[in-house]
C-alpha cells in the first residue's frame, strides 16, 4: 500500500533556511544542505525547497543549492520559487531535483503546465497554490500569487481542477490563514480540493501538533503533509511523527 508522506519544507532566503508566520516575520532555521541531510537521515519521505526571494541573483544560488543537496541527499526533493519557464525547470531537474513547483507563472500562463508535462511528464510538475479564505464567499478560497502578496480572482478549487487537466501532477496546497500559526491545517480547504481532483495533494500550513498531521490525512484527505515550524523549532522528529501516525493506523514508511 502506498504510504502517506511526511515532507519538511525549507524556505530559503539568502542561502539560509527561514520560517515566518503568515509569510512574514522570518526566523533563521539553519543551513539548507545540513538541514536537508538531517531530515533525510531522520526518515523524511521527501523534501521541498522554496526560494522565497526568487530574484535573478537568487536563481543562481538555488541551482547551486540543488546541486549540493543532490550530492548528499538520496530522497526525492522538489524545488520552487520564481520558476517561469520550461528551461528553468530543465536546469533544476538536471541539477538533481525530482520535481519543480510553480505558482505565479502558472496563474499568469496556464499553458506552462501543459508544456512542462509534455516534456518532463506530469509526475514532476507540482502546482503550488497559496490559498486565502474568501471574505465575500463563505466556503471558498482565493488563489494568491507573488509569495502571498497579490490576490487574484481565481477560486482555489476551480483552479486546482483546471490545473490537473492542464498537466499538474500534484498540488502543494498552502493555507495562508493557517501558515506558521501551529493551530492545525485548514482541513475544510484540504477536503474541498482533495474531493475535486485525482492527483496527490500535499497539505501545508498550520502544523503544530502530531494530531494535526493525522487530521490533515483523515479529515482533509491529504496524500502528504508538509511542515516547517514543527520540525525546525519544535521537538518533534520525523520518526516521532511517523510512529504517531502508524499508531493511529496510517500507513507510513517507518
Amino acid at each position, binding site marked *: 500500500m502506498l504510504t502517506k508522506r511526511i515532507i519538511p519544507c525549507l524556505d530559503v532566503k539568502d542561502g539560509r533556511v527561514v520560517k515566518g508566520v503568515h509569510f512574514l516575520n522570518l526566523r533563521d532555521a539553519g543551513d539548507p544542505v545540513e538541514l536537508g541531510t538531517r531530515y533525510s537521515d531522520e526518515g523524511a519521505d521527501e523534501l521541498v525547497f522554496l526560494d522565497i526571494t526568487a530574484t535573478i541573483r537568487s536563481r543562481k544560488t538555488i541551482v547551486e543549492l540543488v546541486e549540493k543537496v543532490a550530492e548528499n541527499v538520496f530522497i526525492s526533493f522538489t524545488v520552487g520559487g520564481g520558476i517561469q519557464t520550461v528551461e528553468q525547470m530543465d536546469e533544476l531537474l538536471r541539477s538533481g531535483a525530482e520535481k519543480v513547483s510553480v505558482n505565479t507563472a502558472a496563474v499568469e500562463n496556464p499553458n506552462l503546465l501543459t508544456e512542462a508535462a509534455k516534456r518532463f511528464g506530469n509526475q514532476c510538475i507540482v502546482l503550488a497554490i497559496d490559498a486565502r479564505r474568501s471574505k465575500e464567499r463563505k466556503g471558498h478560497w482565493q488563489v494568491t500569487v507573488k509569495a502571498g502578496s497579490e490576490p487574484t480572482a481565481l477560486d482555489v478549487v476551480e483552479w486546482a481542477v483546471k490545473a490537473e487537466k492542464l498537466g499538474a501532477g500534484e498540488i502543494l496546497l498552502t493555507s495562508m490563514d493557517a501558515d506558521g500559526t501551529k493551530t492545525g491545517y485548514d482541513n475544510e480547504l484540504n477536503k474541498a480540493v482533495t474531493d475535486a481532483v485525482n492527483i496527490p495533494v500535499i497539505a501545508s500550513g498550520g502544523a503544530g501538533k502530531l494530531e494535526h498531521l493525522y487530521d490533515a490525512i483523515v479529515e482533509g484527505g491529504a496524500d502528504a503533509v508538509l511542515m516547517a515550524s514543527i520540525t525546525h523549532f519544535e521537538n518533534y522528529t520525523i520518526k516521532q511523527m511517523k510512529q504517531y501516525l502508524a499508531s493511529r493506523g496510517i500507513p507510513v*514508511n517507518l
Partner: protein
Amino acid sequence: MLIVIDYNVGNVKSVCNAFRHIGCEAKLSCEPQDIESAAGLVLPGVAAFGFAVSALGPLAELIKKLVLSGKPLLGICVGYQLLFDQSSEFGCHAGLGLVSGNVVSIPTTQIVPHMGWNLVKLPEDMDLFAGLAREKHFYFAHSFYPDVTDTQAKIAYTDYGFDLPASVQKANIYGTQFHPEKSGKTGLKVLKNFAQICKRSNQC
C-alpha cells in the same frame, strides 16, 4: 566503469551522485565509445516517454545491440519503461522492445500519479534485491506503467489497487519503475547490487 546515459532528460546527475556515494565509478556520457566500453549501462530518466525516445535518438540502436550481446543494462523510471515495446503517453511511441509489454496509464480509479513510497515484494531470485528483506519500500513517481507480457521476465510487484510491476529482470536486462537513487539506503543497496552484477559479468 558504469556509464549513465546522458540524453538530455532530467535527473541523470542524481543517479551518478548515488553511484559515487557508494564508491562505484560512474560517468555521465552520451559518447558511443564510452557506451561501448562500459562495464554496464544505466538508462535513467525523468521525462515524458515520447520526449525520451526522441532524445535518445540513434543511441537506441547502439544500446540495443550491446545489451543483446550481454552488456548489463539498468533502466530507471522512464528508462525502465523504454525497455518495453511501446507507450501510449502523449501519443503512441515505440520503445526499445527488449522486454515484451506495453506501457499504459495507471487506471484513474487510483490517484494518478502514483507518488511516494510503496512496499515492493522482492522475489528471492532477482539479483537486484540480493541481501534485502523480502519486502521493502521504494520511491515511485509515475503515471504510466508497463503491462509486462514477457514470459522470460522475473517481476517484482507493488500493490497500487492492482499488481503493478515495480521491477523486472530478463537475463542481463534490469529495470525499476521506482527510483533507487531516491529511495534512501534501500535504493543505494539496489544500485550497489547492479554494480556487482556488472563486475561479475565483465569477469566471465
